[in-house]
């Protein structure tokens, strides 16, 4: 979602977001619950077909899965030792398939469309929940990830420049202060743009 959206006109791009959300949730639940290799294989094939049909850039899709592989490098051998090779492979397969499925959703869905879907889904709860606020909260959460990442990178560079690479305080204090400052500025900008109207 953080700049992962890949514009396109494929069937998957054009599917209503609610359908995609329900499909994603359903498939993820089934992947978690159904413990047979054949089902997992089918789900994996379905996701791969989805990626091909959506014609999203393969390198971008692979980049989403790569961080999970690092976790698997550690977790799979441990699983093999303690539970055997089949449960270890199932665990690894489930994780990779789930992440790929979520990546397919983010690469074919714009945040604004997700906000509209959130508003629609929360419509029955409108007496108790402000759907616009929840949608905005989701958008800001997604938007703030690269902002915080930039802050952390800047602070790490500054820390290195001052020769304080090992100081946790030299990392945490500036990151917290700058994050709060950014949050305040963002709040002001939201008011200025009429987000609370």
């Amino acid at each position, binding site marked *: 979602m953080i700049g992962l959206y890949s514009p396109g006109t494929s069937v998957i791009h054009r599917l209503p977001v609610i359908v995609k959300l329900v499909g994603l949730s359903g498939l993820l639940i089934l992947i978690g619950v159904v413990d047979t290799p054949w089902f997992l294989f089918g789900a994996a094939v379905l996701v791969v077909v989805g990626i091909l049909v959506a014609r999203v850039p393969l390198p971008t899709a692979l980049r989403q899965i790569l961080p999970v592989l690092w976790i698997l490098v550690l977790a799979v051998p441990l699983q093999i030792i303690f539970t055997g090779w089949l449960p270890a492979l199932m665990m690894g397969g489930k994780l990779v398939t789930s992440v790929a499925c979520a990546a397919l959703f983010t690469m074919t869905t714009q*945040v604004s469309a997700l906000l509209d879907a959130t508003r629609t889904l929360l419509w029955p709860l409108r007496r108790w929940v402000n759907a616009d606020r929840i949608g905005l909260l989701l958008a800001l959460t*997604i938007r703030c990830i690269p902002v915080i990442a*930039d802050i952390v990178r800047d602070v790490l560079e500054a820390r290195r420049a001052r020769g304080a690479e090992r100081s946790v305080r030299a990392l945490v204090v500036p990151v917290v202060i700058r994050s709060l400052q950014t949050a305040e500025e963002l709040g002001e*900008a939201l008011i*200025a743009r*009429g987000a609370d109207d």
Partner: protein
Amino acid sequence: MSTIEFTHVTHRFGERTVLRDIHLTLTERRIGIVGANGSGKSTLARMINGLVTPDEGSVTVAGLDVATRGREVRRQVGFVFTNPDSQIVMPTVREDIAFTLRRHKLTPAVAATRVAATLDRFGLTEYAEHPAHLLSGGQKQLLALAAILVAEPQILVADEPTTLLDARNAQQIAEVLTGLDQQIVVVTHQLDLLVGFDRIIVINEGCLVADDAPKAALRTYRSLLS
């Protein structure tokens, strides 16, 4: 042009008085506000949009008091901040511009047309689906301007819009600001930005020290600096 009126405005942040008894009526099309860091000029600009309300006195825009009718004022007054990263809300360029129109309750087709026209006007069409956080500094500030101007405010307030930009990008933003039909109020340290302005206000330590045509006001500002 709308009338922006400051009536004996005083404002404090804690113990510090940042604005003292400011009395101004602004009706010109191009208004510049200059002053040293911490002089109170940004607070003055924020009051036009109702982001800050005065402790004493009042600020009105087209007859609307910013303290009591802030929402109506903000529909007429757009505000551009120094750091565009702080005001980009949505992940892609098109979505961020469209975000401003959500409160306008336009039909999706009308909103899409206005967004497309704004993207085109600011030369951002080729970046429409681009992640906003990956744009260059100048492009981000252009996006920030575009996202405000898509709502067609009557007044645009810009708080040091070129401070974080290099000379080339600053020039580009200056050209965009100069070409606007709206009444604009620009807070800046970069005096080049104020060429062709109708009126310059100089603030020093919270007080109005000059309010004049550019030449005379900037002479006062330079003498303050020296």
